[in-house]
Protein backbone atom coordinates (compact mmCIF):
# COMPACT_ATOMS: atom_id res chain seq x y z
CA UNK A 1 0.00 0.00 0.00
CA UNK A 2 1.57 3.24 -1.11
CA UNK A 3 1.70 5.90 1.52
CA UNK A 4 3.83 8.99 2.04
CA UNK A 5 4.70 8.02 5.60
CA UNK A 6 7.89 6.17 6.36
CA UNK A 7 6.91 2.53 6.52
CA UNK A 8 7.45 0.90 9.91
CA UNK A 9 9.94 -1.60 8.52
CA UNK A 10 12.37 1.21 7.81
CA UNK A 11 13.10 1.55 11.53
CA UNK A 12 16.59 0.15 12.09
CA UNK A 13 15.56 -1.96 15.09
CA UNK A 14 13.03 -3.91 13.08
CA UNK A 15 14.90 -4.17 9.81
CA UNK A 16 16.39 -7.57 10.53
CA UNK A 17 13.57 -9.78 11.76
CA UNK A 18 9.83 -10.14 11.55
CA UNK A 19 9.36 -9.07 15.15
CA UNK A 20 11.17 -6.41 17.11
CA UNK A 21 13.46 -7.71 19.84
CA UNK A 22 12.45 -5.88 22.97
CA UNK A 23 14.72 -5.68 25.98
CA UNK A 24 13.03 -7.76 28.67
CA UNK A 25 12.00 -6.45 32.05
CA UNK A 26 15.11 -7.79 33.78
CA UNK A 27 17.44 -6.34 31.16
CA UNK A 28 15.94 -2.89 31.61
CA UNK A 29 15.83 -3.26 35.42
CA UNK A 30 19.47 -4.34 35.61
CA UNK A 31 20.56 -1.13 33.89
CA UNK A 32 19.27 0.88 36.84
CA UNK A 33 22.03 0.65 39.46
CA UNK A 34 20.14 2.09 42.43
CA UNK A 35 17.17 -0.15 41.75
CA UNK A 36 19.44 -3.19 41.69
CA UNK A 37 21.13 -2.08 44.94
CA UNK A 38 17.72 -1.68 46.60
CA UNK A 39 16.58 -5.07 45.35
CA UNK A 40 19.76 -6.73 46.68
CA UNK A 41 19.33 -5.15 50.15
CA UNK A 42 15.68 -6.23 50.26
CA UNK A 43 16.59 -9.72 49.15
CA UNK A 44 19.31 -10.00 51.82
CA UNK A 45 16.89 -8.80 54.49
CA UNK A 46 14.23 -11.26 53.39
CA UNK A 47 16.70 -14.16 53.24
CA UNK A 48 18.15 -13.27 56.65
CA UNK A 49 14.72 -13.11 58.30
CA UNK A 50 12.82 -15.89 56.56
CA UNK A 51 15.91 -18.10 56.39
CA UNK A 52 16.73 -17.39 60.04
CA UNK A 53 16.75 -21.12 60.76
CA UNK A 54 19.85 -21.36 58.55
CA UNK A 55 21.31 -17.87 58.87
CA UNK A 56 20.92 -17.04 62.56
CA UNK A 57 23.97 -17.91 64.69
CA UNK A 58 21.80 -19.49 67.44
CA UNK A 59 18.50 -21.41 67.39
CA UNK A 60 15.32 -19.52 68.26
CA UNK A 61 14.84 -18.89 72.01
CA UNK A 62 17.96 -20.83 72.99
CA UNK A 63 18.70 -19.80 76.54
CA UNK A 64 22.05 -19.70 78.25
CA UNK A 65 21.13 -18.90 81.83
CA UNK A 66 24.70 -19.19 83.06
CA UNK A 67 25.85 -16.58 80.58
CA UNK A 68 23.11 -14.01 81.38
CA UNK A 69 23.10 -10.61 79.71
CA UNK A 70 26.35 -9.78 77.92
CA UNK A 71 27.36 -6.80 75.73
CA UNK A 72 28.16 -7.33 72.03
CA UNK A 73 31.07 -9.69 71.49
CA UNK A 74 32.57 -11.80 68.75
CA UNK A 75 30.33 -14.69 69.70
CA UNK A 76 27.13 -12.66 70.30
CA UNK A 77 27.35 -9.76 67.78
CA UNK A 78 24.54 -7.83 69.40
CA UNK A 79 24.86 -9.24 72.91
CA UNK A 80 22.31 -11.33 74.81
CA UNK A 81 19.32 -10.65 77.06
CA UNK A 82 19.00 -11.58 80.72
CA UNK A 83 18.13 -15.19 79.83
CA UNK A 84 21.24 -15.42 77.67
CA UNK A 85 19.37 -15.43 74.35
CA UNK A 86 21.30 -14.10 71.36
CA UNK A 87 19.87 -10.71 70.30
CA UNK A 88 20.88 -11.01 66.64
CA UNK A 89 19.07 -14.34 66.24
CA UNK A 90 16.10 -12.90 68.10
CA UNK A 91 15.94 -9.89 65.76
CA UNK A 92 16.01 -12.12 62.70
CA UNK A 93 13.24 -14.37 64.02
CA UNK A 94 11.20 -11.35 65.14
CA UNK A 95 11.65 -9.94 61.62
CA UNK A 96 9.69 -12.87 60.22
CA UNK A 97 6.64 -11.79 62.15
CA UNK A 98 7.14 -8.04 61.69
CA UNK A 99 7.74 -8.30 57.95
CA UNK A 100 4.86 -10.73 57.40
CA UNK A 101 2.48 -8.48 59.30
CA UNK A 102 3.69 -5.42 57.41
CA UNK A 103 3.46 -7.02 53.96
CA UNK A 104 0.00 -8.41 54.68
CA UNK A 105 -1.18 -5.02 55.93
CA UNK A 106 0.31 -3.23 52.92
CA UNK A 107 -1.29 -5.59 50.40
CA UNK A 108 -4.72 -5.68 52.04
CA UNK A 109 -4.94 -1.95 52.73
CA UNK A 110 -3.75 -1.11 49.20
CA UNK A 111 -6.32 -3.50 47.73
CA UNK A 112 -9.13 -1.88 49.74
CA UNK A 113 -7.90 1.62 48.95
CA UNK A 114 -7.51 0.95 45.22
CA UNK A 115 -10.98 -0.56 45.06
CA UNK A 116 -12.64 2.32 46.90
CA UNK A 117 -10.68 4.99 45.04
CA UNK A 118 -11.16 3.44 41.61
CA UNK A 119 -14.90 2.92 42.02
CA UNK A 120 -15.40 6.40 43.50
CA UNK A 121 -13.35 8.09 40.80
CA UNK A 122 -14.79 6.10 37.92
CA UNK A 123 -18.44 6.24 38.88
CA UNK A 124 -18.39 9.84 40.09
CA UNK A 125 -21.60 11.47 41.33
CA UNK A 126 -23.14 10.33 44.61
CA UNK A 127 -21.04 7.13 44.73
CA UNK A 128 -17.94 9.33 44.72
CA UNK A 129 -19.38 11.59 47.43
CA UNK A 130 -20.38 8.73 49.74
CA UNK A 131 -17.09 6.81 49.32
CA UNK A 132 -14.90 9.85 49.81
CA UNK A 133 -16.82 11.10 52.88
CA UNK A 134 -16.36 7.64 54.42
CA UNK A 135 -12.66 7.97 53.60
CA UNK A 136 -12.56 11.36 55.30
CA UNK A 137 -14.24 9.86 58.34
CA UNK A 138 -11.52 7.23 58.62
CA UNK A 139 -8.86 9.92 58.21
CA UNK A 140 -10.06 12.09 61.10
CA UNK A 141 -10.35 9.24 63.61
CA UNK A 142 -7.23 9.15 65.85
CA UNK A 143 -5.65 5.93 64.63
CA UNK A 144 -3.61 4.90 67.68
CA UNK A 145 -6.53 5.26 70.08
CA UNK A 146 -8.83 3.30 67.81
CA UNK A 147 -6.16 0.65 67.30
CA UNK A 148 -5.68 0.20 71.03
CA UNK A 149 -9.43 -0.12 71.57
CA UNK A 150 -9.95 -2.49 68.67
CA UNK A 151 -7.08 -4.72 69.69
CA UNK A 152 -8.42 -4.85 73.25
CA UNK A 153 -11.71 -6.04 71.82
CA UNK A 154 -10.34 -8.53 69.29
CA UNK A 155 -7.42 -9.73 71.33
CA UNK A 156 -3.90 -8.87 70.14
CA UNK A 157 -3.25 -11.84 67.84
CA UNK A 158 -1.21 -11.24 64.65
CA UNK A 159 -4.34 -11.81 62.53
CA UNK A 160 -6.37 -9.20 64.37
CA UNK A 161 -3.44 -6.76 64.14
CA UNK A 162 -3.39 -7.24 60.35
CA UNK A 163 -7.16 -6.74 60.10
CA UNK A 164 -7.21 -3.61 62.22
CA UNK A 165 -4.17 -1.99 60.57
CA UNK A 166 -5.54 -2.77 57.10
CA UNK A 167 -8.94 -1.29 57.90
CA UNK A 168 -7.26 1.92 59.03
CA UNK A 169 -4.52 2.20 56.42
CA UNK A 170 -6.42 2.26 53.12
CA UNK A 171 -7.47 5.91 53.15
CA UNK A 172 -4.32 7.47 51.72
CA UNK A 173 -4.11 5.29 48.61
CA UNK A 174 -7.86 5.59 48.12
CA UNK A 175 -7.53 9.37 47.79
CA UNK A 176 -4.53 9.13 45.47
CA UNK A 177 -6.17 6.50 43.24
CA UNK A 178 -9.43 8.44 43.09
CA UNK A 179 -7.63 11.54 41.88
CA UNK A 180 -5.76 9.60 39.21
CA UNK A 181 -8.87 7.78 38.04
CA UNK A 182 -10.84 11.02 37.74
CA UNK A 183 -8.26 12.31 35.28
CA UNK A 184 -7.80 8.95 33.50
CA UNK A 185 -11.55 8.60 33.03
CA UNK A 186 -11.59 11.59 30.70
CA UNK A 187 -8.85 10.19 28.46
CA UNK A 188 -9.90 9.16 25.01
CA UNK A 189 -8.64 5.58 25.19
CA UNK A 190 -11.26 4.92 27.86
CA UNK A 191 -13.94 6.07 25.40
CA UNK A 192 -12.28 3.92 22.75
CA UNK A 193 -12.59 0.85 24.98
CA UNK A 194 -16.27 1.62 25.56
CA UNK A 195 -16.89 1.92 21.81
CA UNK A 196 -15.44 -1.51 21.07
CA UNK A 197 -17.82 -2.93 23.64
CA UNK A 198 -15.97 -3.17 26.96
CA UNK A 199 -18.11 -3.11 30.10
CA UNK A 200 -17.27 -0.66 32.88
CA UNK A 201 -15.68 -3.48 34.85
CA UNK A 202 -13.50 -4.46 31.89
CA UNK A 203 -12.48 -0.83 31.35
CA UNK A 204 -11.46 -0.55 35.01
CA UNK A 205 -9.48 -3.79 35.06
CA UNK A 206 -7.83 -3.56 31.65
CA UNK A 207 -7.30 0.15 31.10
CA UNK A 208 -7.59 2.12 34.34
CA UNK A 209 -5.72 -0.05 36.86
CA UNK A 210 -2.75 -0.93 34.57
CA UNK A 211 -2.17 2.78 34.12
CA UNK A 212 -2.01 3.15 37.89
CA UNK A 213 0.44 0.29 38.48
CA UNK A 214 3.27 2.70 39.27
CA UNK A 215 1.28 4.58 41.90
CA UNK A 216 0.04 1.33 43.41
CA UNK A 217 3.51 -0.26 43.58
CA UNK A 218 4.97 2.82 45.25
CA UNK A 219 2.13 2.83 47.76
CA UNK A 220 2.65 -0.84 48.67
CA UNK A 221 6.33 -0.15 49.34
CA UNK A 222 5.58 2.89 51.51
CA UNK A 223 2.76 1.06 53.28
CA UNK A 224 5.10 -1.80 54.29
CA UNK A 225 7.42 0.71 55.94
CA UNK A 226 4.52 2.51 57.57
CA UNK A 227 3.01 -0.71 58.87
CA UNK A 228 6.30 -1.80 60.44
CA UNK A 229 6.45 1.49 62.33
CA UNK A 230 2.81 1.30 63.48
CA UNK A 231 3.13 -2.35 64.50
CA UNK A 232 6.30 -1.51 66.44
CA UNK A 233 4.55 1.43 68.08
CA UNK A 234 1.62 -0.74 69.09
CA UNK A 235 3.85 -3.52 70.37
CA UNK A 236 5.97 -0.98 72.24
CA UNK A 237 2.82 0.36 73.91
CA UNK A 238 1.83 -3.19 74.76
CA UNK A 239 -1.19 -3.51 72.46
CA UNK A 240 0.55 -5.35 69.67
CA UNK A 241 2.35 -8.66 69.45
CA UNK A 242 2.52 -10.25 72.89
CA UNK A 243 5.42 -12.21 74.40
CA UNK A 244 6.52 -14.96 74.07
CA UNK A 245 6.11 -14.12 70.37
CA UNK A 246 8.58 -11.42 69.55
CA UNK A 247 8.37 -8.64 66.99
CA UNK A 248 10.67 -5.70 66.42
CA UNK A 249 8.27 -3.55 68.42
CA UNK A 250 8.05 -5.59 71.59
CA UNK A 251 11.81 -6.28 71.52
CA UNK A 252 12.29 -2.51 71.60
CA UNK A 253 9.85 -2.18 74.46
CA UNK A 254 11.61 -4.88 76.47
CA UNK A 255 14.98 -3.32 75.83
CA UNK A 256 13.90 0.24 76.49
CA UNK A 257 14.54 -0.08 80.22
CA UNK A 258 18.16 -0.95 79.57
CA UNK A 259 19.03 2.35 77.87
CA UNK A 260 21.63 4.15 79.89
CA UNK A 261 22.44 1.26 82.21
CA UNK A 262 26.18 0.55 82.57
CA UNK A 263 27.79 -2.52 81.10
CA UNK A 264 28.05 -5.41 83.51
Amino acid sequence: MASPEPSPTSAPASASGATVKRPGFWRRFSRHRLAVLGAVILALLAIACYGAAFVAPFPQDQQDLLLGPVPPSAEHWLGTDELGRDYLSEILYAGQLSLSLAIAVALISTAIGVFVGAVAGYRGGWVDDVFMRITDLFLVVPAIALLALALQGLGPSPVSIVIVLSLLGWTYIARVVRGQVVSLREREFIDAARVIGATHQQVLMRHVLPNLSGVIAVNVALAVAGAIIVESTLSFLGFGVQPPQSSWGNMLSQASGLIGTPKV
Partner: protein
Amino acid sequence: MTSVLDVRHLVKEYPVRSGVLRRVTGSVKAVNGISLTLERGRTLGLVGETGCGKSTVGRCLVGLIEPTSGSVLLDGVDVSAMSGRELRAARRRIQLVFQDPYASLDPRQSVEAIVSEPLRLHGLARGSESARAAALLDLVGLSSSVLQQYPHELSGGQRQRVGIARALALEPEVMVLDEPVSALDVSVQAGILNLLEELQRELNLAYVFIAHDLSVVRHVSHEVAVMYLGRIVEYVDADTLYSAPQHPYTQALLSAVPLPDPRAERSRKRILLEGDLPSPIDLPTGCAFRSRCWKATDVCSSIPELRTTDYHAVACHNADQV
Protein backbone atom coordinates in the same frame (compact mmCIF):
# COMPACT_ATOMS: atom_id res chain seq x y z
CA MET B 1 -34.23 2.40 0.42
CA THR B 2 -31.41 0.38 1.98
CA SER B 3 -29.87 2.95 4.23
CA VAL B 4 -27.44 1.33 6.65
CA LEU B 5 -27.65 4.24 9.06
CA ASP B 6 -30.74 6.28 9.71
CA VAL B 7 -30.74 9.06 12.31
CA ARG B 8 -34.06 10.61 13.21
CA HIS B 9 -34.60 13.84 15.13
CA LEU B 10 -31.56 13.33 17.32
CA VAL B 11 -31.51 15.71 20.30
CA LYS B 12 -28.89 15.99 23.02
CA GLU B 13 -29.45 18.50 25.80
CA TYR B 14 -27.17 19.13 28.73
CA PRO B 15 -28.76 20.58 31.85
CA VAL B 16 -27.29 23.81 33.16
CA ARG B 17 -27.25 23.91 36.94
CA SER B 18 -26.68 26.93 39.11
CA GLY B 19 -26.97 28.08 42.70
CA VAL B 20 -26.21 26.20 45.90
CA LEU B 21 -28.92 23.61 45.34
CA ARG B 22 -27.65 22.83 41.83
CA ARG B 23 -31.11 23.28 40.40
CA VAL B 24 -31.55 22.91 36.66
CA THR B 25 -31.98 26.43 35.36
CA GLY B 26 -31.65 25.83 31.66
CA SER B 27 -30.16 23.57 29.06
CA VAL B 28 -27.54 23.56 26.36
CA LYS B 29 -28.93 22.11 23.18
CA ALA B 30 -25.74 20.60 21.76
CA VAL B 31 -27.69 18.71 19.10
CA ASN B 32 -31.10 20.05 18.23
CA GLY B 33 -33.14 17.67 16.11
CA ILE B 34 -30.84 16.20 13.47
CA SER B 35 -31.85 13.66 10.82
CA LEU B 36 -29.37 11.91 8.55
CA THR B 37 -29.39 8.90 6.26
CA LEU B 38 -26.40 7.02 4.95
CA GLU B 39 -26.13 4.19 2.46
CA ARG B 40 -23.55 1.43 2.22
CA GLY B 41 -20.29 2.44 0.60
CA ARG B 42 -21.05 6.17 0.85
CA THR B 43 -19.49 8.98 2.86
CA LEU B 44 -21.42 11.68 4.62
CA GLY B 45 -19.40 14.75 5.55
CA LEU B 46 -20.48 16.55 8.71
CA VAL B 47 -18.99 20.03 8.90
CA GLY B 48 -19.34 23.05 11.11
CA GLU B 49 -17.27 25.24 13.37
CA THR B 50 -16.05 24.31 16.84
CA GLY B 51 -18.92 23.79 19.28
CA CYS B 52 -21.63 23.27 16.69
CA GLY B 53 -22.34 19.78 18.00
CA LYS B 54 -20.81 17.66 15.25
CA SER B 55 -18.67 15.60 17.62
CA THR B 56 -21.68 15.15 19.91
CA VAL B 57 -23.58 13.66 16.97
CA GLY B 58 -20.70 11.23 16.34
CA ARG B 59 -20.59 10.19 19.99
CA CYS B 60 -24.35 9.66 20.08
CA LEU B 61 -24.07 7.42 17.03
CA VAL B 62 -21.56 5.05 18.65
CA GLY B 63 -23.30 5.10 22.01
CA LEU B 64 -20.74 7.04 24.05
CA ILE B 65 -23.43 9.63 24.76
CA GLU B 66 -27.05 8.79 25.29
CA PRO B 67 -29.24 11.09 23.22
CA THR B 68 -32.02 13.00 25.02
CA SER B 69 -34.48 12.01 22.31
CA GLY B 70 -34.55 10.78 18.76
CA SER B 71 -33.46 7.45 17.37
CA VAL B 72 -30.46 5.85 15.67
CA LEU B 73 -31.38 3.03 13.28
CA LEU B 74 -28.76 0.58 12.07
CA ASP B 75 -30.10 -1.40 9.11
CA GLY B 76 -33.61 -0.49 10.26
CA VAL B 77 -33.04 -1.63 13.87
CA ASP B 78 -33.33 1.04 16.55
CA VAL B 79 -30.18 0.79 18.70
CA SER B 80 -30.84 3.89 20.80
CA ALA B 81 -33.49 1.94 22.74
CA MET B 82 -31.21 -1.00 23.58
CA SER B 83 -29.05 -1.45 26.64
CA GLY B 84 -26.49 -3.76 28.18
CA ARG B 85 -25.38 -6.86 26.31
CA GLU B 86 -27.82 -6.35 23.44
CA LEU B 87 -26.51 -2.85 22.87
CA ARG B 88 -22.87 -3.93 22.89
CA ALA B 89 -23.60 -6.58 20.28
CA ALA B 90 -25.45 -4.11 18.07
CA ARG B 91 -22.78 -1.45 18.48
CA ARG B 92 -20.27 -3.78 16.90
CA ARG B 93 -21.61 -2.63 13.57
CA ILE B 94 -20.82 1.05 14.10
CA GLN B 95 -17.32 2.03 15.17
CA LEU B 96 -15.51 5.26 15.89
CA VAL B 97 -12.08 6.49 14.83
CA PHE B 98 -10.88 9.20 17.17
CA GLN B 99 -9.39 12.55 16.35
CA ASP B 100 -6.27 12.31 18.47
CA PRO B 101 -4.30 9.12 17.91
CA TYR B 102 -2.00 10.12 20.77
CA ALA B 103 -4.82 10.02 23.34
CA SER B 104 -7.01 7.24 21.99
CA LEU B 105 -4.52 4.37 22.39
CA ASP B 106 -3.85 2.97 25.87
CA PRO B 107 -0.16 3.74 26.58
CA ARG B 108 0.15 0.53 28.63
CA GLN B 109 -0.93 -1.82 25.85
CA SER B 110 1.08 -3.16 22.95
CA VAL B 111 -0.28 -2.73 19.45
CA GLU B 112 -1.21 -6.40 19.43
CA ALA B 113 -3.22 -6.03 22.64
CA ILE B 114 -4.94 -2.90 21.31
CA VAL B 115 -5.97 -4.42 17.99
CA SER B 116 -6.99 -7.80 19.40
CA GLU B 117 -8.93 -6.37 22.36
CA PRO B 118 -12.20 -5.95 20.40
CA LEU B 119 -11.82 -9.55 19.18
CA ARG B 120 -11.44 -10.83 22.73
CA LEU B 121 -14.32 -8.73 24.04
CA HIS B 122 -16.70 -10.17 21.46
CA GLY B 123 -15.21 -13.66 21.29
CA LEU B 124 -14.21 -13.31 17.64
CA ALA B 125 -11.38 -15.27 15.99
CA ARG B 126 -10.94 -17.37 19.16
CA GLY B 127 -7.47 -18.84 19.39
CA SER B 128 -6.15 -16.93 16.40
CA GLU B 129 -6.38 -13.39 17.74
CA SER B 130 -2.77 -12.52 16.97
CA ALA B 131 -3.00 -13.78 13.41
CA ARG B 132 -6.15 -11.72 12.94
CA ALA B 133 -4.45 -8.68 14.50
CA ALA B 134 -1.56 -9.06 12.05
CA ALA B 135 -4.01 -9.34 9.15
CA LEU B 136 -5.80 -6.18 10.31
CA LEU B 137 -2.51 -4.30 10.53
CA ASP B 138 -1.69 -5.46 7.02
CA LEU B 139 -5.05 -4.11 5.90
CA VAL B 140 -4.18 -0.64 7.18
CA GLY B 141 -0.69 -0.75 5.72
CA LEU B 142 1.38 -1.58 8.79
CA SER B 143 3.80 -4.49 8.94
CA SER B 144 3.38 -7.08 11.66
CA SER B 145 6.68 -5.90 13.18
CA VAL B 146 4.75 -3.23 15.09
CA LEU B 147 2.68 -5.85 16.95
CA GLN B 148 5.01 -5.89 19.94
CA GLN B 149 5.56 -2.13 19.98
CA TYR B 150 3.84 0.38 22.22
CA PRO B 151 1.97 3.49 21.05
CA HIS B 152 4.74 5.85 22.16
CA GLU B 153 7.13 4.13 19.77
CA LEU B 154 4.95 4.90 16.74
CA SER B 155 4.50 8.03 14.62
CA GLY B 156 1.20 9.89 14.50
CA GLY B 157 0.23 8.36 11.16
CA GLN B 158 1.09 4.86 12.36
CA ARG B 159 -0.97 5.38 15.50
CA GLN B 160 -3.97 6.52 13.52
CA ARG B 161 -3.61 3.39 11.38
CA VAL B 162 -3.63 1.31 14.57
CA GLY B 163 -6.80 3.16 15.64
CA ILE B 164 -8.40 2.34 12.29
CA ALA B 165 -7.33 -1.31 12.56
CA ARG B 166 -8.93 -1.51 16.01
CA ALA B 167 -12.20 -0.12 14.64
CA LEU B 168 -12.08 -2.55 11.69
CA ALA B 169 -11.55 -5.55 13.98
CA LEU B 170 -15.28 -5.83 14.62
CA GLU B 171 -16.09 -5.74 10.89
CA PRO B 172 -18.37 -2.72 11.21
CA GLU B 173 -20.68 -1.49 8.48
CA VAL B 174 -20.51 2.14 9.53
CA MET B 175 -17.45 4.02 10.70
CA VAL B 176 -17.73 7.39 12.39
CA LEU B 177 -14.52 9.30 11.65
CA ASP B 178 -14.22 12.14 14.15
CA GLU B 179 -11.74 14.49 12.49
CA PRO B 180 -9.44 11.54 11.76
CA VAL B 181 -6.69 13.59 10.15
CA SER B 182 -6.83 16.99 11.85
CA ALA B 183 -4.25 15.99 14.47
CA LEU B 184 -1.79 14.76 11.84
CA ASP B 185 0.87 16.44 9.73
CA VAL B 186 -0.36 17.50 6.32
CA SER B 187 2.05 15.08 4.66
CA VAL B 188 0.55 12.18 6.60
CA GLN B 189 -3.07 13.28 6.14
CA ALA B 190 -3.13 12.28 2.47
CA GLY B 191 -1.90 8.78 3.30
CA ILE B 192 -4.67 8.24 5.87
CA LEU B 193 -7.36 9.67 3.57
CA ASN B 194 -6.26 7.39 0.73
CA LEU B 195 -6.27 4.43 3.10
CA LEU B 196 -9.81 5.26 4.21
CA GLU B 197 -10.98 5.47 0.60
CA GLU B 198 -9.34 2.16 -0.24
CA LEU B 199 -10.94 0.48 2.77
CA GLN B 200 -14.32 1.88 1.80
CA ARG B 201 -14.02 0.36 -1.67
CA GLU B 202 -12.77 -3.01 -0.42
CA LEU B 203 -15.14 -3.45 2.52
CA ASN B 204 -18.13 -1.43 1.27
CA LEU B 205 -18.02 0.71 4.43
CA ALA B 206 -20.23 3.69 5.10
CA TYR B 207 -18.48 6.68 6.66
CA VAL B 208 -19.69 9.58 8.72
CA PHE B 209 -16.78 11.96 8.24
CA ILE B 210 -16.73 14.72 10.84
CA ALA B 211 -14.44 17.63 10.04
CA HIS B 212 -14.05 21.37 10.05
CA ASP B 213 -11.72 21.40 7.05
CA LEU B 214 -13.93 21.95 4.02
CA SER B 215 -11.31 20.99 1.45
CA VAL B 216 -10.74 17.60 3.14
CA VAL B 217 -14.50 17.01 3.30
CA ARG B 218 -14.90 17.82 -0.38
CA HIS B 219 -12.21 15.28 -1.21
CA VAL B 220 -13.83 12.36 0.64
CA SER B 221 -17.59 13.00 0.85
CA HIS B 222 -20.50 12.04 -1.35
CA GLU B 223 -22.96 14.11 0.64
CA VAL B 224 -22.31 16.93 3.10
CA ALA B 225 -24.36 18.19 6.01
CA VAL B 226 -23.44 21.64 7.33
CA MET B 227 -24.18 22.21 11.02
CA TYR B 228 -24.67 25.46 12.86
CA LEU B 229 -25.42 25.50 16.60
CA GLY B 230 -26.85 21.99 16.78
CA ARG B 231 -28.95 22.13 13.62
CA ILE B 232 -28.34 21.14 10.04
CA VAL B 233 -28.55 24.23 7.88
CA GLU B 234 -27.72 22.66 4.53
CA TYR B 235 -27.66 19.04 3.40
CA VAL B 236 -26.81 18.18 -0.18
CA ASP B 237 -24.42 16.19 -2.37
CA ALA B 238 -20.85 17.40 -2.19
CA ASP B 239 -20.50 18.80 -5.71
CA THR B 240 -23.62 20.93 -5.45
CA LEU B 241 -22.59 22.22 -2.04
CA TYR B 242 -19.29 23.49 -3.35
CA SER B 243 -20.58 24.79 -6.68
CA ALA B 244 -23.91 26.28 -5.60
CA PRO B 245 -24.21 26.73 -1.83
CA GLN B 246 -27.60 28.06 -0.80
CA HIS B 247 -27.40 28.84 2.90
CA PRO B 248 -25.65 32.11 3.77
CA TYR B 249 -23.62 30.31 6.46
CA THR B 250 -22.33 27.77 3.94
CA GLN B 251 -21.51 30.58 1.53
CA ALA B 252 -19.52 32.36 4.24
CA LEU B 253 -17.66 29.15 5.14
CA LEU B 254 -16.77 28.39 1.54
CA SER B 255 -15.57 31.91 0.91
CA ALA B 256 -12.98 31.33 3.64
CA VAL B 257 -11.42 28.29 1.94
CA PRO B 258 -8.19 29.41 0.29
CA LEU B 259 -8.04 28.89 -3.48
CA PRO B 260 -4.88 27.46 -5.04
CA ASP B 261 -5.06 29.94 -7.95
CA PRO B 262 -3.79 33.35 -6.75
CA ARG B 263 -5.66 35.26 -9.45
CA ALA B 264 -8.95 33.66 -8.50
CA GLU B 265 -8.10 34.17 -4.85
CA ARG B 266 -7.57 37.92 -5.39
CA SER B 267 -10.68 38.48 -7.44
CA ARG B 268 -13.23 36.69 -5.27
CA LYS B 269 -15.24 38.32 -2.55
CA ARG B 270 -14.73 37.14 1.01
CA ILE B 271 -17.83 37.06 3.18
CA LEU B 272 -16.85 38.18 6.65
CA LEU B 273 -19.25 37.19 9.39
CA GLU B 274 -19.73 39.73 12.14
CA GLY B 275 -19.98 38.98 15.81
CA ASP B 276 -19.28 35.78 17.70
CA LEU B 277 -20.98 32.43 17.83
CA PRO B 278 -24.02 32.95 20.11
CA SER B 279 -24.07 31.05 23.41
CA PRO B 280 -25.83 27.71 22.93
CA ILE B 281 -27.49 28.22 26.34
CA ASP B 282 -29.22 31.33 25.09
CA LEU B 283 -29.95 30.81 21.41
CA PRO B 284 -31.35 33.67 19.35
CA THR B 285 -35.09 33.29 18.79
CA GLY B 286 -36.00 32.14 15.33
CA CYS B 287 -33.12 31.33 13.00
CA ALA B 288 -29.98 30.72 15.10
CA PHE B 289 -27.82 32.31 12.42
CA ARG B 290 -29.71 35.57 12.08
CA SER B 291 -27.53 37.42 14.61
CA ARG B 292 -24.63 37.14 12.15
CA CYS B 293 -26.44 36.93 8.82
CA TRP B 294 -26.28 39.75 6.29
CA LYS B 295 -29.47 38.55 4.63
CA ALA B 296 -31.55 38.52 7.79
CA THR B 297 -35.03 40.02 7.52
CA ASP B 298 -38.14 40.00 9.68
CA VAL B 299 -39.17 36.50 8.61
CA CYS B 300 -36.03 35.15 10.31
CA SER B 301 -37.69 35.53 13.72
CA SER B 302 -39.38 32.19 13.05
CA ILE B 303 -37.31 29.01 12.95
CA PRO B 304 -36.64 27.98 9.33
CA GLU B 305 -37.38 24.33 8.59
CA LEU B 306 -35.04 22.25 6.47
CA ARG B 307 -36.76 22.55 3.08
CA THR B 308 -35.92 20.02 0.42
CA THR B 309 -36.02 20.87 -3.27
CA ASP B 310 -34.45 18.45 -5.76
CA TYR B 311 -32.30 16.69 -3.14
CA HIS B 312 -31.03 20.03 -1.89
CA ALA B 313 -32.08 20.74 1.68
CA VAL B 314 -31.62 24.24 3.10
CA ALA B 315 -32.84 25.76 6.35
CA CYS B 316 -33.14 29.42 5.41
CA HIS B 317 -36.04 31.72 4.63
CA ASN B 318 -33.99 33.84 2.28
CA ALA B 319 -31.99 31.14 0.51
CA ASP B 320 -31.21 31.78 -3.14
CA GLN B 321 -33.78 30.30 -5.44
CA VAL B 322 -32.75 26.98 -6.99
